[in-house]
């Protein structure tokens, strides 16, 4: 399953939490013109470097599908950063 929600939490030295919930699908739809450009650029790069574009797309798809469950927490003194992909 592709990621559905990316959660970003940040606590600065002031102790205030900043929470950002990013629904992936709506964000992807919103950014679709840029995504199309990025895919085109990737395809051109594949052709330039002699890599199979289908393999590249399949690899990128696997990577995207495997992202849910990833969690990164970094706490340094008063500063905390948490990134979670669901």
């Amino acid at each position: 399953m592709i990621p559905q929600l990316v959660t970003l939490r940040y606590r600065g030295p002031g102790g205030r939490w900043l929470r950002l919930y990013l629904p992936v699908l709506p964000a992807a739809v919103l950014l679709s013109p840029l995504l199309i450009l990025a895919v085109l650029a990737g395809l051109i790069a594949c052709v330039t470097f002699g890599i199979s574009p289908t393999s590249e797309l399949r690899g990128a798809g696997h990577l995207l599908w495997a992202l849910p469950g990833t969690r990164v927490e970094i706490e340094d003194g008063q500063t905390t950063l948490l990134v979670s992909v669901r």
Partner: protein
Amino acid sequence: MNEQRRQVLQMLAEGKITADEADRLIEALERDQPELPPATATRQKPRPKYLRVVVLDSSSGPEPTRVNIRVPLQLLRAGVQLTSLIPPQALTRVNAELDKSGVPIDLAELKPQQLEELVDQLHEVTVDIEDGDAKVQVFCE
């Protein structure tokens, strides 16, 4: 029914031993049998899903630095698959740089299947490093 138990019952049927003797022999056979073969026990263990990296560093000040990373093993597999798409020119340059740094590894020799096997065996890996105020743990769960 295993062969030894069958032999005991056969001897009982032929009247070579009494029922009590057969009972004692069967009990002795059951005691001698291992409870579970180790391979079966390993197979029943649930496969780990995540690779965890936990770092705790108390040397920087009163409040320790903590890093807690959880990466799905599936993501590692997907990443490993992507390595097969590295252009040959890039591989040559990476190999040259590795060689220059004293790590003579030819990445072109690494096959995706070998890398996948490596990821499959990761669940056996546990790294636990403790150095003064710093602690690093890498394990699968």
